[in-house]
Each structure stands twice: as C-alpha cells, then as structure tokens.
C-alpha cells in the first residue's frame, strides 16, 4: 500500500478549501454553541442561503458577484431573525429541533421543481464565480512543494478561504474578550443570572445567532465558489453534524477550536477514506466494496462524535468545565 500517497491526500484535504469552508461555518457555530450555548442544528441552512446568495445573484439575476455576497449575508441575517424570533425564548432543545427543521425546509424548497427557475432545482446552479477567479493574481501554472501540487484557481480560493477564517478568528477573539463576549458567555453559564443583572438575554442571543449565521453563510459561499456549483443536496443536515463533530474535536468555546477541528477532521476523514480504498484495492477487506466507503466514513464520523462526547467533550483545546452543558 502506498502510505505516502494516502498521507498526501489527507494533508491536501486538511488544508484544502473545503476545510476552510467548514472552519468558517464552524466558527459561526462556535459563537452559537460554544459561547452562547445555543443549540443551532441548522447551520447548514445558513450556509445554503449564503452559497445560493452568490449563485442566484450571478447566474439568474446577472448581478456582479460582490452584490451576491451582500445578498447572501442579508439572507443569513433574515433567516437568523426568522428562526430566532420564535425559538430563542424557548428551551434550547426547541431551538435545536426548529433549526434542523428549518434547514430541511430550505433544502427541500431550494431543490423543488417549484423553485427551479430560480435555484436550478435538483441540478443547482453552476459557473457563477467567474468574477472571483478573474481576480486571481496567480498566473495559471502548477504550484508545487514536496508532494503537494496545486493549480492557480485552487491556490486562490484556498488563500481567500483561509484568509476569511483568520479574519473571523480575530473578530471572534476580539468580541469574546469584550464586554459583549462576557455577556454571551454568562448566558451560556446561567441565563437567569444574566437576566437578573438586567441584561436583555433574548436580544444578546439574537445577536449571537445573527453573527454566527453570517459566518455560516460565508462558509457556504467558500464552499460553492470552490466547486463553482451550488446544489441543494450538498447542504444536507449531515453537514451540520460534521460541523458539530469537528467543533467538539477541536474544542468548543475556544477561538482556535473550530480551525484546528476542521483541519484535523478533514485530514482524518479523507485519510481514512484513502486508506480504506487502498485496502480494498489490495484485497485486504474482501467483504467491502468501494461503494461502501462513503457510508463507512459517515458511520465512523458518527462513532467518533459519540466517543468524543462521552470521553472528551471539551475536545483538544477546550476546558472541561466549560462543556458541562446542562439543564437549559
């Protein structure tokens, strides 16, 4: 078996644009779940409106791409307000179920033939990020280092993606160490206490939901710009579960948690895929077919999330006392 190539594939995934997109969305989720204690299970819905914001603006409306970015942000804000208004006053389990339902509603709706003139239905929309790739400062070439090799477009989207991740991380760091950050963390720890100090808990939760949702939309944008394709099926609820897994892996409630989590998550998942594939190709696992790999990958992710949550809920970077989430 070619371990070097397996490692290369895994490394590529760990630093690739998809990992950047997931890191962005997970930073948003970290604001919800890690800092404010909101159980948002519809983060993928924010990614979806962000991604389609660009895709629809460019492909259907013929607007320039930067307008699409603004539209995606606006959609995320509206979605957060719609979701937050009924659910943020309720116990967190209600928010969890309402958000996952909202994510599914969005996916089903964007995929339906009803919405096909605007969203492209099951086929989605393609080739809308020309503006973005026109800005690419790198001449078309293969850029290589060691075993890794990449083309100019990939290089460009990765730099922008990870640049956005860095900006978001700085933003979160500053916010969390501001009075605002102390309030949202106090809401996570004890909502009643925050309320008794005269803080408008509902409004702070709403702000956190909007902010994290916008970061989720940016994650969705990086995702669709990377593939130049927006398809509702790629915004499956499983994406949100991936985000939770990598957030818990890296450490919820830490600035670097989602970033480390995303890199490690994709390194492990894709490395495991490649390992499994080469084992099957070499006849080591005769009872499996290569078509099963996707399913096995997902079941391993599930098992990983379960075990992490049981044995190390604070992940790699987190503090255990911050992850004793209860009651609310």
């Amino acid at each position, binding site marked *: 078996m070619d371990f070097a190539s397996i490692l290369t594939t895994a490394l590529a995934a760990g630093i690739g644009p998809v990992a950047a997109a997931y890191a962005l969305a997970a930073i948003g989720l970290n604001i919800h779940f890690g800092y404010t204690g909101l159980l948002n299970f519809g983060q993928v819905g924010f990614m979806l409106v962000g991604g389609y914001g660009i895709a629809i603006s460019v492909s259907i409306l013929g607007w320039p791409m930067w307008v699409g970015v603004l539209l995606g942000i606006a959609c995320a804000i509206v979605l957060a307000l719609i979701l937050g208004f009924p659910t943020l006053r309720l116990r967190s389990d209600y928010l969890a179920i309402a958000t996952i339902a909202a994510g599914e509603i969005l996916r089903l709706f964007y995929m339906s033939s009803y919405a096909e003139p605007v969203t492209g239905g099951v086929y989605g929309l393609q080739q809308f990020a020309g503006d973005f790739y026109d800005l690419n400062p790198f001449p078309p070439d293969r850029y*290589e280092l060691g075993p890794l090799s990449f083309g100019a477009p990939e290089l460009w989207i990765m730099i922008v993606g990870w640049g956005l991740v860095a900006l978001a991380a700085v933003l979160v760091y500053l916010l969390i160490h501001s009075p605002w950050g102390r309030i949202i963390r106090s809401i996570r720890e004890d909502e009643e206490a925050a309320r008794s100090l005269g803080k408008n808990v509902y409004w702070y939760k709403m702000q956190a939901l909007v902010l994290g949702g916008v970061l989720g939309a940016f994650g969705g944008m990086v995702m669709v710009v990377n593939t130049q394709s927006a398809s509702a099926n790629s915004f499956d609820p499983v994406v949100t579960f991936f985000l939770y897994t990598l957030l818990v892996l890296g450490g919820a409630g830490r600035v670097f948690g989602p970033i480390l989590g995303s890199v490690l998550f994709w390194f492990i998942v*894709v490395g495991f895929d490649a390992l499994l594939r080469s084992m099957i190709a070499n006849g080591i696992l005769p009872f499996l077919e290569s078509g099963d790999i996707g399913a096995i990958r997902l079941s391993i992710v599930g098992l990983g999330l379960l075990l992490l949550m049981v044995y190390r809920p604070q992940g790699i970077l987190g503090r255990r006392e911050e992850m004793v989430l209860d009651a609310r």
Partner: protein
Amino acid sequence: MTRRSMLARALGVLVMIVFAIMLPTASVAAQDGESVHGTIRDPGGDPVKGIAISVTQDGDEVGDTSTDADGAWQVDLPEPGNYQVEVDLATLPDGVVPKVRGGEVREVTVDEGDAQPVIFPLVKEGEQEEPGSPATEQTEQPPAPPPGETEEPTPGETGVAPAAGASFFDRFMQTLANGIQYGAVIAISAIGLSLVFGTTRLINFAHGELVTFGAVIALFFHVGGPGLPLIAAGAIAVVAGGLLGGTLERGLWRPLRNRGTGRINLFIISIGLALFLRHLILVFQGSRPESYIDFNLQKTMDFGLFVITPRDLGIVLISLAVLFAVAFMLQRTRIGTAIRAVSDNRDLASSSGINVNQVIMVVWVLGGGLAALGGVLFGLAQVVHWEMGFKLLLLMFAGIILGGLGSAYGAMVGSFVVGIVSHISTLWFPAELQNAWALLVLIIVLLFRPQGILGRKERVG
C-alpha cells in the same frame, strides 16, 4: 529565484488541490488525475447497481467498472483526451433503455486534471427518443447529482392519488384519508420518542434509526434470508427493535446517566449514534429502496368519500389498535402509572418506591418495539430505504412538539396533525414539498403555542 516560485514555495507548504472532497458526502471521485464518473438512475430516480461501463479510446479499452450500490461509477483515465464511455445494455434492468436511441455510448473530452461527469439518462422502454431531436442533442450534460446522495423516495406514492378532475371536496377527502394513514405511521413511531423524552429528558436523535432498523430487519426475514410472510417477519422486527432499544439503554444511556452527563451532551451523543447506525444500515442494506412482497398489489376499496387499498386500511387499523393499547397501558396498568409518575417527577417517583431504572428500561423496550413496528408499516406504505427513519424523525419531532413535548397523547395527536397537513398541502403545492409544510407547521406552533396542543402550560423558556 523568481518571486513567483518563492511565493509558490512558501504557500506550497500550506495549500494544495483537493478534488476529492468537494462535496461532503461525495466519496467517489477521489483520485488526482483524470477520470470520468457518474451516477446511473432508473427512470424513477433510484440508483441502479451493477451496470457495466467500459471506457475506450480509439477502440482500445482503457478501463471498465460497474455501478455500486449508489449507482455511482468511476473510471480513472491515463491522460487527457477523447474517450468513448459505453454502458453495457445487457446489464440494464428489464424494460429500461437509454433516453435516446444509441445513447448508451457517449463521447467525452477530458481536460487535464478533470473529473468529467458523464450522464446516461434512462427511460422506460417505449419512451425512447430518436437521436437528433433538439432536446437531446446536447453534448454538455447537466451535472450529476452528487454521488453518494440518493434521491428520496417520493413520499407522494403512499395512499391513492386522487383522481384528476374530481371535485375539490372529493380530492380533499382522499388526501385527508391518505394523511390519516401517514399520521398513523408517524404516531406509532413517535410514541417511543415521546416516552423516552418524558422519562429521561433525552431528545433521542437516534430514534429514526430504530424505525429504519425495524423495516430492514423485516425486509431481511421477508425478502432475503428465510422468506417468511411479512406478518411473521414484522413480528420478529418488533422484537428485535425492542431488544435494540433495551440494549442501547443498558449499554449506553444508563451508564451515561449514572455519570451525570449533561442533557445537551446526551443530545449530541445521540446524533453521533444516529449517524453511526444509519450508515451502518446503509452498508448492509445498500442505498437502493426495496419493497415488501406481501400486500404489494391490491385493488382499492371504495368507501364513497375516499378509496383505500386494504393494505393502507390495515396500516391505519393496526396503528389505531396499538395506539389505544398504549393509551390503555399508560392509563390503567401498574407499569403505565409508573411511567407517568416518572415522567411527572422523577425524584418523587423514585422516593415513592418506583424503580426508575426499571421503568426507563420498559420505556426503551416498548419504544424500540413500536418504532420497529412503525418502520415496518412505513416500509409497507412506501418503500424500505436506509434514510427513511431520519426523514420520519423530523416529522416525529414536529408531531411531538406540536402535541406537547413529553406527553404521549400529545405525540399521537400531533403526529396525526403533521401527517394530515403534509398530505393536505399537496392539494395546492407540489408533493415534493409536503414534508416541508409539515415542518413549517412546527415552527408556526412554536411561535404561538410553544407548549403544544396538549402540553402543560409550564415555563418552557
């Protein structure tokens, strides 16, 4: 050293291409270098397994493969260039042909580093088109839906489609009947979820997998393996579902409760468990929807206001009987009283001598068995599919929140509302959105009456 290469080198440590993971659940196109790939679906949109595909260049065979359980296939190519991709007609399912005559061969041009999708649209025999018609002359194919994803079995196929041209009232009654049947299935499956929540405050995300498990076990004993009649296979599935529920309680949830794991942590653990079980089922069952053999083709019975097949009527009657039995048990038996006591106030129940762990065990076994029964009925009404439980789970959540979280009767009422809403919506809106409407009802209820229809007016904020 030029500036560019220095930049490239500095950045090269950090970056590189990822073709493989562009879509979170896509797993097929994983190699660097050139390849062709695609997903083959039958006219109903379901993936087809085992179709032989060969790739040739100027008459020389470059590679061949066959579609996997998701209908997906991929052939790696040695270099960029022009290739012919051909589907072996002999391996297509009976009665299915390429959309265009001669459409089994496609010419593709693959650029460097490209993973080129190739689509072979299939239609039923007799719907084949002649080549050259404008609609089919495209060389650029629309992109394949991501491999690894399967289309959901259309929920609209349950029940009897109202006849076109019937009066609105007739169509309304017919969809109402269909909705009641759908609601009955949701209710049966949701009781366990509601009871578990009531007694342990656990939102069990893995409950949908108990439903799928039941359907798949019944399928195994019915179609594969021993070939038992469906009723026997269903009974085995119910027992197996109860066992699985009990095993999960004993092996996972009870130890976690004893450790004092937080509620939200438990919730996320159940999501991990759900992912694990669901995809384990996918590995064993495959992604192709299957149907039970018994009660498959039936004549409808006409009740004046609506028509219904004996099968669907049976589903409704079985569900109602089981729902009444559960209600009777909760209201009149010792264990039912104990369950309600634990739901009400666990500490008080414990201090008045109720063995709380034992009660929770009973709830899990009961809930697992009912979920499995719900799965069998759901599979009978529609198809058995690895994701069926997850799709149903969101509707179950909608039902139990609608009815009042933690109240078993609320779960029953709410489930019927969800089932009926989803079917009534098809009177005005496309059937593919029927579940979306049901979920929308959930969000609207949270706005106006968060405690649900039968929920106690307590502080839920």
